[in-house]
């Protein structure tokens, strides 16, 4: 069959487009390879940073928080109560202090982070069948210490209650079941979010450096004056392909190997994870290409973008609950791929959700991919017209 002329032209355009696309891809990879700053962002940071954060948080929980006891009752019952608190893995009784003053001095010197005061009427009240009131003074430099110690003391007091039988106790029992992240681990909680964020932010910084460098090289333009750089789609696809190739390996490292190394729960299978990572990576790439185009000066990206990591982390709703977040920040967060990346990854990886449970995040990621793809195309289109 012979191709008619217009068909021939179209076929030519397509084949030239694809050829150009791959040559832009190759060109971009060369640029990345030659730029130490970009290599740092695309390869070294994504390898080192997850490990660094993993090491910082890997102990997961606080254990044996030291606290002091001021026992004014000097009773066997009080000592039993203290022994029960000491038995908890979260706290450790550092010592009995002679007075509240002594204990406060220890607290000032950071030998202890809490003081349990047992009053002199402790024993007599309990023997009379009344509630005894103890006081727990907590150093609030860490809420984790406070929560753990209070819980240990409350559990010990409920434990003591089981010894006093009047026939009404335990009318209703209760059981606590932590469903996800059962050990309340800090790494299991924060590391997944950091991993996703490292991927997006290094992409953002690396692409920022690349596009600012192009501007410095090409008299203010994002693309060189070159025949290959004549079509919007081939530029956007060519560049994106270069970043994707690198970041597929980065994702395997950061989202599969690192969680495994630090024993973070991995409740998803790799197929689903891959399906999820695809729109996340694509949206992060086009998002970065869009944001990067506004930045002038090779060094500026780091200066102006570094603080956004904290903003993006908090706006994602992983630490500060979404239900307590003002609406305007929630809607702003919908523009950032990491919001859905973090939420989706946590739900898949830490909570064993399937794609159906994260349908909202998944759709939003594809929506953002489409949106930022269009913005990236518009930006490069303008560049072509201007050149």
């Amino acid at each position, binding site marked *: 069959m012979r191709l008619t002329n217009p068909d021939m032209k179209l076929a030519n355009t397509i084949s030239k487009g694809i050829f150009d696309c791959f040559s832009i891809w190759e060109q971009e990879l060369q640029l990345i390879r030659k730029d130490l700053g970009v290599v740092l962002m695309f390869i070294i940071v994504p390898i080192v940073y997850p490990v660094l954060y993993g090491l910082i948080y890997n102990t997961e929980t606080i254990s044996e928080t030291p606290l002091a006891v001021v026992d004014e009752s000097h009773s066997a019952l009080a000592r039993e109560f203290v022994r029960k608190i000491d038995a908890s893995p979260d706290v450790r009784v550092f010592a009995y202090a002679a007075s509240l003053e002594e204990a406060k001095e220890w607290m000032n010197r950071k030998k202890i982070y809490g003081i349990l005061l047992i009053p002199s009427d402790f024993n007599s009240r309990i023997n009379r069948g009344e509630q005894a009131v103890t006081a727990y003074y907590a150093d609030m430099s860490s809420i984790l210490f406070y929560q753990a110690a209070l819980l240990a003391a*409350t559990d010990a007091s409920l434990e003591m209650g089981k010894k006093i039988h009047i026939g009404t106790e335990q009318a209703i029992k209760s059981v606590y079941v932590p469903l996800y992240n059962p050990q309340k681990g800090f790494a299991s909680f924060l590391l997944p979010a950091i991993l996703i964020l490292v991927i997006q932010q290094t992409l953002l910084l690396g692409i920022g450096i690349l596009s600012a460098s192009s501007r410095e090289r090409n008299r203010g333009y994002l693309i060189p004056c070159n025949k290959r750089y004549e079509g919007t789609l081939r530029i956007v696809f060519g560049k994106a392909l270069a970043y994707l190739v690198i970041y597929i390996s980065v994702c395997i490292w950061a989202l599969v190997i690192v969680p495994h190394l630090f024993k973070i729960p991995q409740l998803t299978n790799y197929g689903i994870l891959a399906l999820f990572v695809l729109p996340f990576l694509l949206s992060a790439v086009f998002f970065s290409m869009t944001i990067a185009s506004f930045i002038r000066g090779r060094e500026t990206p780091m200066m102006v973008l570094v603080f956004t990591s904290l903003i993006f982390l908090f706006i994602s709703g992983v630490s500060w609950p979404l239900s307590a977040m003002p609406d305007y920040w929630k809607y702003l967060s919908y523009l950032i791929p990491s919001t859905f990346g973090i939420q989706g990854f946590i739900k898949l990886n830490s909570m064993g959700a399937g794609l159906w449970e994260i349908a909202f995040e998944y759709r939003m990621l594809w929506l953002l991919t489409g949106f930022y793809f269009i913005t990236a195309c518009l930006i490069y289109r303008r560049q072509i017209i201007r050149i």
Partner: protein
Amino acid sequence: MQYLLRIAGRETGRIFSGKIYWFCMFFVPLFSCLFFLSLMHKGLPIALPIAITDMDNTSASRSLVRQLDLLEGLHVTATYNNFNEAQTEMQKGNIYGIFLIPRDFAQKTVSAKQPVLSFYTNNSYLIAGSLVFKDMKTAATLAAASVALQTGKARGYTDQQVMASIQPIVIEAHPIGNPWLNYSVYLNNVILPGILALMVMCTTVYSIGIEIKEKTVWEWLRNEQSSILPSLAGKLLPQTILFLLVGLLLYAVLYVVMQFPINGNIGSMLVALFLLITASQAMGVFMIGCLPTLRLGLSFACLFGMIAFSISGFSFPVNAMYPQIQAVSNVFPLRHYFLIYADQALNGRALFYSWPHYIALLGFGFLPVLTLRNLSWSLKYAPYKP
């Protein structure tokens, strides 16, 4: 002196004419302040969504659900008849906890067969998970208590005796310095100065590195004989002053507008702020001295500055980390600032207990000495490598 002032004057001009300085010195700290304070304006997250699985569906179980909803910390968004639906809802992230009322709850309660309430939390969201845990535990205890009080009364016990049998020891919590358990106080007192310190480091590195890059070193230093110390001092002084002003504005917002507690002496916090800024400047000089190209120096500053937020231990405490990491935490100015803050502002301790950290912050001032020769050489003789 005149030399120093001339450089300071030149630097001030550069700061006010460069967009990037405006952005990093003023916009970033102030925007972050606005962002974090408005994000956490509730202080303690309340009305966190939970779901109920009510398998009993009697008036008794429904009254228990109402009691749960009355707790300030919780908001019951839905009731399901089976657990799986609730769990799916949790996997979607719509609820942070599930409270399960078993079949025959009412009947078992009446016949003293000890029904078991179960409650589930999602600790993948650690803050929300801990908060709903606390309230659901309270609800379960209250439910048991109310039944116990009724049966106790029937058997002739006083309320006091019944309560003593359930929980013989009451623990009154006294969270020192932050009685509201306000997370904004807890986090923003360190995050915001931390962002300031990060920007100080970056700006210091940038302002020196850009001279190398744009080959303007000879506008800055007069000639090869110029000593590096006064040149640096003249350059950094205007930045110190401006950052201090931004820091004071930040303090005004935190401690005057938001009324965050200062239980000690504000003077000791102001000194800490000043030392945090100068220590970060010193870190910046040290970094560009180690890696005297703008790009690498800046990367160093950014990567170091970001780690500071984790390793300073205001969210996950340093003494729960590995011993090696605990040791490393000391090379971060923000770590010392946080410890001073905890002593001086939060706990209102005597200055005596914090002096090692003031000394440490001062000590950062000597860091640049280590790389000064390298920096001086790079400024004067090294060709710019992109």
